[in-house]
């Protein structure tokens, strides 16, 4: 049973309510724990949101500002390196966009609470620098383009001047040599053509041509100058060259000069030192580039300062963030502790609940009921249940108890019925046994009768044997005497046809026949006496290990020969179906021999009977078989003789029951065989079909002892 239950009073309520109460209790604990942990997490969350809302955004924004500033600076070289106005405007646009983003980033940072005055100032500065740079670059690019154009023109001009000067020199030389200037005028004389002026002109033209080449070389150098300082020396060289050219030009200027060249020289001067000449342009370009470089440097410096500023902001922010993080960690640890302890508490509470309550109220009782049911299922309905409480489990127990009682009652009823049945069965068996006993008693009575009869007949037979012997002996000797008489008569020399001989012979024949009849009947009477004597005899001799096959063969043959001797026309034959190996049994050989002899004799008689009445093509056959069938040794004698009818077969083993004529059988053979077999603890059997044949057989225990 179960121990005293402190929670018994709970059983007043239904299981649902009980569980409800307990669960409710557990829930309350869980809720409490959740509230506490929620509160703790809330604390942490507050710290976290503080961080997220305040510190981290500021960090992010600061970094953004820093990044934008760097990007701005990186764009500057592209502006200064722009190859033409189109690219310049593209780059300037890009710069402007990034600058706007930069300004926005600063605004956002300011909105997030950082002091951004310094940053705004820096942004303003950068904007100013950008504009300055844009202007400078544009100016420079225009100048560069103008310079390229000017250089192209200078190249063309150089070629043109070269051609023209060559032409002029060629003409002047020709004139000097031949005095001819135009095709239509005649040649001038030597005095004119070799005049100093003309010679000088030729010389100066050549000078101009060579100096012009130098001037163009100087101007080419201007285009590739990298330092505005270099421009001045180049300018000097240009002026030196041009003064030579002009000097020469002075001599060529005039109505007889090569005036055609002068406009080109004017163009050259314009292209070189004019307002938009290569010197001016180169100067502008180089100075602009220096200015641009300055502006870029200033921008870089501004950005560096800005980045430093932002770094400081970031560092400050990081420090603040770390403080907050430390706070958060503290909250988290506290939270862990509280939540942990509450969780432990809940866990223990649940355990307690589980152990004390569930176990005692529910589990134990259910186990108890279950084991009770198991006991009942096993068959033991005697154990009664303890029932208490009013909940579902109690009801279960109550119902089970009721059921148990009913089952017990039923079981007992069953038992009674079963006993009654048993009793009836026993009665039946008793009746059968009584019947058997009656029959046995009848048989014993019969046997006693027969035994008495046997003793009687044995006594009578003994008594009769003597006189019978006399009768037989005398009748035999009488037959012999008749024979002798016949011989004497034969010696009388009587005619065999005489009446006296014939009469004597007839009387002697009749005498002999009578004697033979007497002998025969006497032998029959002898046989009867012998049979009667053997009836009383019980099993004679000791049992011994006998080979059955040889025994069967021998006595079957004996039987057959005796029948043949009695009825020479008998054509039946004996067929053997016996095993090759010896079949050994522990039997009284003499008795079994008598049985085999009896059976085979009967079989031959039966065949003879059939042969007599239906000679036809009937082939009488007697089949003798010996076989071991399981634990029995079977000997069968099967004949195809006349067979037996039903009522005959039923009585065939009864003593004195015979189908034969009185002088052939006594009716005791089969009865004796039956008894002999039975005394060996064997069984005799018979099968027969009237008109077809019969099978007689007996089986002996294969390893048995005759009894």
């Amino acid at each position, binding site marked *: 049973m179960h121990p005293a239950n402190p929670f018994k009073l709970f059983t007043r309520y239904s299981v649902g309510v009980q569980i409800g109460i307990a669960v409710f209790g557990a829930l309350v604990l869980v809720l409490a724990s959740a509230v506490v942990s929620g509160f703790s997490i809330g604390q942490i969350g507050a710290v976290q949101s503080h961080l997220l809302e305040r510190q981290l955004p500021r960090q992010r924004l600061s970094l953004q500002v820093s990044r934008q500033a760097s990007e701005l600076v990186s764009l500057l070289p592209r502006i200064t390196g722009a190859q033409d106005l189109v690219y310049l405007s593209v780059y300037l646009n890009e710069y402007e966009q990034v600058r706007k983003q930069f300004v926005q980033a600063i605004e956002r940072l300011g909105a997030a609470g950082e002091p951004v005055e310094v940053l705004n100032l820096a942004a303003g500065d950068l904007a100013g620098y950008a504009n300055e740079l844009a202007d400078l670059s544009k100016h420079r690019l225009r100048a560069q383009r103008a310079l390229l154009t000017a250089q192209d023109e200078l190249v*063309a001009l150089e070629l043109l001047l070269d*051609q023209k000067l*060559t032409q002029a*020199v*060629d003409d002047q030389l*020709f004139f000097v*040599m031949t005095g001819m200037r135009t*095709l239509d005028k005649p040649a001038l004389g030597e005095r004119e053509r070799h005049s100093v002026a003309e010679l000088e002109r030729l010389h100066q033209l050549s000078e101009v041509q060579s100096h012009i080449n130098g001037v163009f070389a100087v101007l080419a150098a201007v285009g590739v100058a990298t330092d505005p300082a270099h421009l001045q020396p180049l300018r000097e060289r240009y002026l030196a060259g041009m003064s030579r050219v002009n000097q020469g030009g002075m001599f060529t200027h005039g109505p007889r000069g090569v005036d055609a060249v002068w406009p080109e020289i004017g163009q050259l001067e314009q292209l070189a030192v004019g307002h938009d000449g290569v010197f001016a342009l180169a100067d502008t370009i180089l100075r602009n580039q220096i200015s641009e470089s300055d502006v870029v440097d200033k921008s870089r410096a501004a950005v560096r300062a800005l980045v430093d500023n932002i770094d400081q902001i970031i560092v400050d922010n990081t420090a603040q963030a770390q403080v907050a993080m430390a706070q958060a960690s503290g909250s988290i640890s506290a939270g862990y502790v509280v939540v942990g302890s509450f969780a432990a508490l809940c866990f223990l509470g649940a355990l307690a609940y589980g152990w004390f309550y569930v176990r005692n109220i529910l589990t134990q009782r259910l186990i108890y009921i279950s084991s009770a049911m198991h006991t009942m299922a096993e068959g033991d309905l005697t154990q009664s249940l303890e029932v208490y409480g009013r909940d579902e489990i109690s009801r279960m127990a109550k119902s089970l108890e009721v059921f148990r009682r009913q089952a017990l009652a039923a079981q007992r009823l069953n038992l009674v019925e079963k006993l009654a049945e048993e009793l009836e069965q026993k009665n039946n068996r008793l009746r059968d046994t009584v019947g058997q006993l009656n029959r046995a008693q009848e048989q014993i009575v019969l046997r006693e009768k027969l035994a008495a009869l046997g003793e009687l007949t044995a006594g009578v037979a003994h008594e009769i044997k003597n006189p019978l012997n006399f009768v037989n002996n005398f009748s035999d000797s009488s037959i012999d005497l008749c024979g002798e008489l016949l011989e004497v008569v034969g010696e009388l020399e009587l005619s065999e046809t005489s009446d006296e001989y014939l009469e004597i012979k007839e009387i002697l024949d009749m005498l002999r026949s009578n004697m033979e009849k007497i002998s025969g009947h006497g032998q029959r009477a002898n046989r009867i006496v012998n049979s009667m004597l053997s009836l009383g005899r019980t099993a004679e001799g000791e049992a011994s290990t006998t080979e059955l096959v040889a025994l069967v063969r021998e006595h079957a043959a004996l039987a057959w020969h005796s029948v043949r001797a009695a009825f020479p026309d008998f054509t039946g034959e004996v067929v053997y179906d016996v095993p090759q190996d010896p079949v050994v049994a522990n039997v009284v050989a003499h008795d079994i021999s008598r049985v085999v002899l009896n059976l085979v004799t009967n079989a031959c008689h039966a065949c003879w009977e059939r042969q007599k009445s239906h000679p036809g093509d009937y082939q009488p056959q007697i089949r003798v078989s010996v076989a071991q069938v399981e634990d029995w040794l079977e000997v069968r004698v099967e004949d195809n003789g006349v067979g037996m009818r039903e009522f005959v077969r039923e009585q065939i083993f009864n003593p004195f029951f015979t189908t034969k004529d009185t002088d052939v059988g006594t009716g005791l053979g089969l009865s004796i065989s039956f008894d002999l077999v039975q005394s060996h603890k064997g069984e005799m059997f018979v099968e027969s079909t009237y008109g077809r044949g019969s099978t007689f057989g007996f089986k002996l225990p294969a390893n048995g002892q005759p009894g």
Partner: protein
Amino acid sequence: MGRLGQRIKLTVLGVVSALAGLSSLSAWAGELLFAQSAPLSGNAGQLGEQMRLGVRAAFQEVNRNGGVNGHRLRLISLDDAYEPQQAISNAETFVGQDDVIAMIGGVGTPTSMAIVDLLASAKMAYLAPMTGAGGLRDKKYPGVFNVRASYHAEVQQIVQWIATQKNGARLGILYQDDSYGQSGLTSLRQELAGRRELLVAAAPYMRNTTAVKGALLTLRDAAPDSVLIVGTYRAAAALIRWSRKIGFTPRFFNLSFVGSEALAAELGAAVQGIYVAQVMPSPSQQEQALVARYRRALIDFDGGVRPTYISLEGYVAGRVAAALAGQIDKVTRQSFYAAIAALPSLEIDGLRVPSNQVFLTMAQADGAFEPVN
């Protein structure tokens, strides 16, 4: 304004004609565009103009007959004023223009030599340049198809003729100071090697000028019987006129590049007796099938224009372009270049090109040129 202005003018011209062309393009399966960079102004301006005229006349004739496989032929031209630098600039423009099939009708040796490598690497063909320079006949430029005989062949013809004359053993040469002049000089030297004729004076002059007087004095002092002029018509005319002025009267021989009709125009009646080697049949020889068709095409194109040797050469160039394009399934820059590279020669109305025929002619007082033999 100068060259820039010229460029602008031509660009506008090109745009307008393109727009005009577009509107009439609808009837055609497509258009095959050929480009020309040649002197259309300056001392050699006539040469480029005449070539252009001939090509356009040929194109118009072909277009009037259904074009090439349903495609219309068109020529665009840019002036290079016989300056190599400008020729390079023009060639770069054309190479960069995707629809240009090939260049045709260029003029001059230095201008052609300046662009031939650029065109070879762009796999653009250079068809019938008006130059006989050996450099362009080099096997390393498979994309160049020459229509005319080489300068060497011209010089050869001239020298051989001189050799048949009684008094012609002394030769002089006026040559441009560039690759054209040099190729003439070299060819003359080669041709005279082993002959009894001697080269007694060789005088250069500055290209694209008429500054030939110094050279004239040099030549006069050497007293040659014949003077070969390797230069353009202006310089040649100046030499001839001034030679006569100073009483120096050798036989003057010109290569075809001089521009026969331009020379005649410069000299007027004074052109009589001046020899010019020709690489094209005479444009007045109407019995020839080619010349007849040429003259018809010219009249169809511009009725008032006189037939000239150079415009005939341009016409042949145009006909060659059309014939080649007609042999190609899908005419692209690459397929045209490949066709030219694989083409040994072509026949245009009985004239086999590249031709190696040189006809020595002598100018008549009326400006006609009659063959000498």
